[in-house]
């Protein structure tokens, strides 16, 4: 099976390069045959990578420990549920997943636009395949000389040839990122999967994030295609709108799932730590969000065309950078992976080349991107969008700087010093506040220029409501300036959204004489992009409330309890009941049972555990979380005496954390509404399909005539 996987990769590599050339030649010569062949190349690429991925899944499922990747990330006692996700536990598999997703997106893209008659599609396909070819090169050709091997130990015919051609000396050739590489011997047992990864989140979080990362490649490819072909009007934006928001959907979902996963499994009571790899996922999200907003200005007013190109190049560059940061281990993090110089060099070269090539293209074609309008006034929706973009990009830069700071400090001072959570929070909170305010202002303010009447009409009630909430909370005893400020802003934004829905419904009822529920439904379904966007804003506001409360008002205590003892903390009480130790197939479990009381009434009986994993030789603390809408009780087992007579329990009270996940759900729902194909698009697609089938029908006639 590993031979099939390995061969599929090799064949896919060839197909990939063929497609690049066929697509470019086809588009340049306007040859439908070559273009059709290139499209088939894209589909074959996807097909071959699907076979390779299937082969890898099979090898993981049957635990073929002779395969190095399988031996490194699984063990014979690892549950099947985690054996398959071990696919993306290491570098090699992650890269395969990356290209597989890229090939899937490309195949879908070509399928959707196969009869859209524009050179943008073949050029975009060529760009996507170029990106794919880089990752294929890494997987297949990146190697190191393994001193512990002899040249005779290389059994794979492809690598035997490669070894002979390159004349590797001082050991055997060992590909660095190839998951199908077979060891010269079969180990008795695999190393197993890091217990942190043995969580249902492992199933969903990495693939979701990759779907987001890789999805940004499609708007990038179309942007480049627009520059190369010289068709730099709004068509590329219209063609890629759905793809961009899809990528954004997955990036958001990936980030939210990542936060939730960290919260549930890492056991330190938080959901975000400004870890380099988290940042690596967050920076593209910031840039993609900026892009989503600024394309609206280009569509509506023909402005910001160069800016949009810059943004998509940056966003794509950052997704590659994110992949690099995640996979290279260049900055130590909880996600740390082994470092490898050749891998680093290849990635840096690719990033540099692609960003430079894209920038060069942009500079040479800049005359195609003339703005059609000027900014009329600082008080207008255009400038609100512009501010929004500036803040988003600024935030992205801050996060990037903070992420890379350890590298800078290593260069200048010789040690990696990271800037820490405080630094990020201190610098970023004004930016978040500004973004939240713009969330409320942007959708309401007038296009072109806003006058006093417009401002009064749109902002009177929301501002009043925001002030009211802030003053009310202050009267109820809230003393934190940050909290009051953010609460006021969130209330303001909330009021703008409610007001939009209210006025929109009223306007619809006036125009088409509908009843309230019908008008509401039509409001959302007829203008799904706009009202889906408002739902997303609502989700953001809810998340902001959760983040503000939980980061300002967390309370924490370590309680050391003898068996039967009960200690109070902040209106709760914790009683230690019993202790047990037992063995699972792949780990020992130490578990203490507690009773949690709230205002002296029993709330819940909970068990907190520490686990010792055999194969991985790691001790792991699992968090027990009692969720409520008001606050989470976050329990971990700190330490315990061998006989279980005393235990130390770490208790954290995290206010409003549940609202972060609720807000996340609202955001995701809003994105689905905004992504839903509206009537126009369905109509257009129907028409395109019709045209395609008619051309299909004509084909035999044409052949007969010829």
């Amino acid at each position, binding site marked *: 099976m590993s*031979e099939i996987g390995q061969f599929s990769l090799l064949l896919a590599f060839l*197909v990939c390069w063929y497609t690049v050339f066929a697509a470019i030649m086809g588009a340049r010569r306007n040859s*439908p045959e070559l273009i059709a062949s290139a499209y088939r190349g894209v589909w074959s690429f996807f097909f071959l990578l699907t076979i390779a991925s299937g082969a890898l899944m099979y090898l993981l499922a049957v635990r073929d420990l002779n395969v190095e990747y399988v031996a490194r990330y699984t063990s014979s006692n690892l549950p099947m549920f985690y054996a398959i996700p071990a696919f993306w536990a290491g570098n090699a598999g992650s890269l395969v997943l990356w290209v597989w997703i890229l090939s899937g997106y490309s195949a879908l893209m070509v399928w959707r636009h196969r009869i859209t*008659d524009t050179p943008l599609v073949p050029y975009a396909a060529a760009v996507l395949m170029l990106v794919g070819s880089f990752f294929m090169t890494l997987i297949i050709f990146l190697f190191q000389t393994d001193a512990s091997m002899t040249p005779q130990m290389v059994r794979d015919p492809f690598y035997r040839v490669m070894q002979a051609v390159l004349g590797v000396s001082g050991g055997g050739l060992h590909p660095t990122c190839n998951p199908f590489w077979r060891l010269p011997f079969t180990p008795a047992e695999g190393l197993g999967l890091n217990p942190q990864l043995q969580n249902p989140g492992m199933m969903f979080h990495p693939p979701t994030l990759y779907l987001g990362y890789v999805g940004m490649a499609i708007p990038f490819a179309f942007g480049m295609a627009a520059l190369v072909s010289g068709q730099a009007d709004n068509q590329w934006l219209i063609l890629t709108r759905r793809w961009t928001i899809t990528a954004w959907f997955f990036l958001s979902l990936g980030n939210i799932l990542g936060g939730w996963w960290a919260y549930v499994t890492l056991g330190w009571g938080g959901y975000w730590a400004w870890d380099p790899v988290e940042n690596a996922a967050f920076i593209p999200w910031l840039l993609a969000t900026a892009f989503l907003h600024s394309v609206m200005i280009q569509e509506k007013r023909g402005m910001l065309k160069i800016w949009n190109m810059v943004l998509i190049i940056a966003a794509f560059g950052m997704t590659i950078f994110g992949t690099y940061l995640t996979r290279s281990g260049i900055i130590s993090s909880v996600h740390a992976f082994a470092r490898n110089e050749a891998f680093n060099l290849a990635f840096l070269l690719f990033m540099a080349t692609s960003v430079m090539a894209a920038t060069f293209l942009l500079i040479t074609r800049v005359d195609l991107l003339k703005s059609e309008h000027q900014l009329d006034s600082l008080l207008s*929706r255009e400038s609100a969008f512009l501010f929004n973009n500036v803040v988003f990009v600024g935030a992205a830069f801050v996060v990037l700087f903070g992420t890379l700071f350890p590298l800078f400090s290593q260069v200048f001072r010789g040690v990696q010093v990271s800037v820490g959570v405080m630094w990020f929070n201190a610098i970023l909170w004004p930016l978040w506040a500004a973004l939240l305010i713009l969330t409320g202002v942007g959708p309401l303010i007038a296009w072109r220029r806003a006058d006093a009447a417009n401002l009064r009409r749109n902002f009177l009630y929301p501002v009043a409501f925001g002030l009211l909430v802030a003053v009310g909370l202050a009267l109820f005893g809230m003393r934190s300036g940050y909290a009051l400020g953010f609460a006021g802003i969130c209330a303001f934004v909330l009021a703008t959204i409610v007001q939009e829905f209210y006025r929109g419904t009223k306007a619809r009822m006036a125009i088409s004489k509908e009843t309230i529920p019908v008008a509401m439904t039509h409001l959302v379904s007829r203008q799904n992009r706009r009202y889906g966007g408002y739902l997303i804003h609502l989700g953001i506001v809810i998340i902001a409330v959760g983040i503000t409360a939980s980061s300002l008002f967390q309370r924490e205590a370590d309680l050391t309890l003898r068996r039967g003892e009960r200690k109070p903390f902040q209106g709760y009480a914790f009683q230690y009941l019993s202790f047990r130790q037992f063995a699972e197939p792949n780990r020992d479990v130490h578990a203490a049972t507690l009773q949690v009381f709230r205002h002296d009434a029993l709330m819940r009986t909970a068990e907190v555990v520490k686990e010792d994993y055999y194969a991985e030789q790691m001790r792991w603390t699992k968090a027990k979380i009692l969720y409520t809408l008001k606050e989470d009780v976050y329990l971990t087992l700190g330490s315990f005496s061998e006989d279980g007579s005393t235990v130390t329990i770490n208790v954290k009270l995290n206010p409003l954390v549940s609202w972060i996940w609720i807000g996340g759900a609202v955001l995701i729902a809003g994105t689905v509404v905004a992504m839903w194909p509206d009537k126009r698009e369905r*109509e257009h697609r129907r028409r395109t399909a019709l045209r395609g089938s008619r*051309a299909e029908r004509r084909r035999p006639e044409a052949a007969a005539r010829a």
Partner: protein
Amino acid sequence: MFSASVIIVLTIGVGLFITYPLLTRFRSAKSGEDSRTSDLMVRRDQLFHDIRELEFDYRMGKLSEEDYAELLTQLKTEAAEVLSALEEAERTPSEKPHEPLRAAPRDADIEVLVAAARQARAARLRQGPEPAKRITCPSCNAANPLEAQFCMKCGALLAAETKGNP
């Protein structure tokens, strides 16, 4: 053995699949005229959408009256241009108009626009080519160009066999 046969089948299959369009007299599913019409239709739909949204924005108080009037005129002018260009494309005999101009815009304004465009077209059709080259719609008896697949007035399917294949 199993792996070897899978590998051989894969190579041959993928090779044939990719080269098929090059080896046979493959005809692409596209044609230039069609795409021009389709682009115009996309633009038209976009404009109708913009007009509707503009009116909505105005009613929600997000636009001053002068801006509303000015933008509306701009959009309507462009919409009228697109509509007449579409009509032009439909009259060009090289490619058949498979989609009538009815795009179901909701607001009265747009209806008026479309109605005006239709009248203009009908007038031109009346003084157009001789009636022998027309096909009568089975459901509403309107005259349609020979190439039409759908009735331009009511949208009904025009039976393909009655006009014979070219």
